[in-house]
């Protein structure tokens, strides 16, 4: 392959890669807003994790520690 062809391929590669990255970026932004719109997730409520962080505060989204889960299953 001569240098000219290589350069041309590089330019195409560069262009499409840039388009690809831009799509990913905007795709992610779209995903974030869409998720909130259809109620799949409310991202902004996670900000409360820092504000209500006392050990006695209720978690924003609870997860049962595995052991507690096991105990429940046994009961």
């Amino acid at each position: 392959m001569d240098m000219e062809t290589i350069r041309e391929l590089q330019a195409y590669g560069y262009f499409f890669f840039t388009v690809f990255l831009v799509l990913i970026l905007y795709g992610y932004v779209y995903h974030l807003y869409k998720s909130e719109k259809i109620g799949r997730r409310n991202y902004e409520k996670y900000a409360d994790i820092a504000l209500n962080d006392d050990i006695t505060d209720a978690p924003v989204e609870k997860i049962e520690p595995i052991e507690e889960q096991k105990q429940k299953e046994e009961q």
Partner: protein
Amino acid sequence: MQSSNVINYDYSVAKLFSYAAILFGIIGMGIGVFIAYQMAFPELNYLAGEYGTFSRLRPLHTSGVIFGFMLSGIFATWYYVGQRVLKVSVAESPFLMFIGKLHFWLYMVVMLVAVVSLFAGVSTSKEYAELEWPLDIGVVVVWVLWGVHMFGLIGIRREKTLYISVWYYIATFLGVAMLYLFNNMEVPTYFVAGMGKWYHSVSMYAGTNDALVQWWYGHNAVAFIFTVAIIAQIYYFLPKESGQPVYSYKLSLLSFWGLMFVYLWAGGHHLIYSTVPDWMQTMGSIFSIVLILPSWGSAINMLLTMKGEWGQLKENPLIKFMVLASTFYMFSTIEGPIQSIKSVNALAHFTDWIPGHVHDGTLGWVGFMTMAAMYHMAPRMFKRELYSKKLMESQFWIQTTGIVLYFSSMWIAGITQGMMWRATDQFGNLSYSFIDTVTVLIPYYVIRATGGLLYLIGFFIFTYNFYKTMTASKAIENEPQHASPMAA
């Protein structure tokens, strides 16, 4: 007193690392001020034989502030923030408690040996990676222990979603693990070729490849320690101290992935007009410009978190420290991209403008955030109010003045230096010899060193305030929800 079956957060490891941050802060910044005066007054190089020379002390300064002060601050905040945002106490797991303490003590041992070895002049001569191979192994063990603690705590959490700060701590852990391993691949010369002492080594990479790996490491150390781990802190401490939720949680996620992706490609800006391939330099330059976006994304998110609450800036010096920190973060992340433009870098590289840039980031952003975090943690860790608001105010202004003196003098010095190096007469002969630039710069070196001294004085005020908070301040009954209580 609470009954024994109520769980509480356990801050024992956070306290230990806070003490370490103060200790290494004093040592690292103290040496920094001293070597700054050496540049203004070269006679200061001859006070303690080989041990007192600039070349011996410089890696002690950088390692002391980076791996001593800043890293201890990062660890201290992890052992504090981690529990709180995951809503689980380390006290619930004796194993993790043990790992945390082991992490601290091994870290201290490695640091101690590191300080001794650097004083003795044992060095791989790689910037920010000077430690020889036996110590590198120690560093790896310390790092793995931190990871065990981090993922162990995540494993027993009650809060399902990992708060954004935890993402940043994880990125710090993974990023540095990768960087450190690859940059410190070294050949122990004694065992391979019977040359040198048993602890000596040479890099596994040679020439341009070594430079590439070195700056892939150096640049991304800035990414994953100086940036990511400090953002982890501000995303927790600023909202918590001000009582304001993060302005946009979605923006915090977007900037997280933006930083992760873009930072890794920008390292070429350290090697502009060197022997690395031209396309890499161009790539580094372009990605550095793009890097403004995710960097400012985080910083603006922080400033907007204070929207409608700017009154707090007047009342609460802690907020002041953190707002100034994010402002300096914006400052260094616009200055860096400017220096990455090839023609600007041709002037700026090797000059004093670079340490000027470095210290906008480290003193303004990293230092202020670390101290603000420790001020916020102190009343909660020691169940006492902060000892003196007045001292905090004076510390703030003394240190801010110090930073301004630092960067303004280094800008002038750097640009003067760069212009003098390239100046030619009408026949194309260089107009100045190297020593001409040195003599011209001495006044600026004096100003810089004095700026550093002011910052160090501020750090002593901080230390005193912290110590008094621990020992002599008024006890508080309940943990403060938001603003840290402080005596006038």
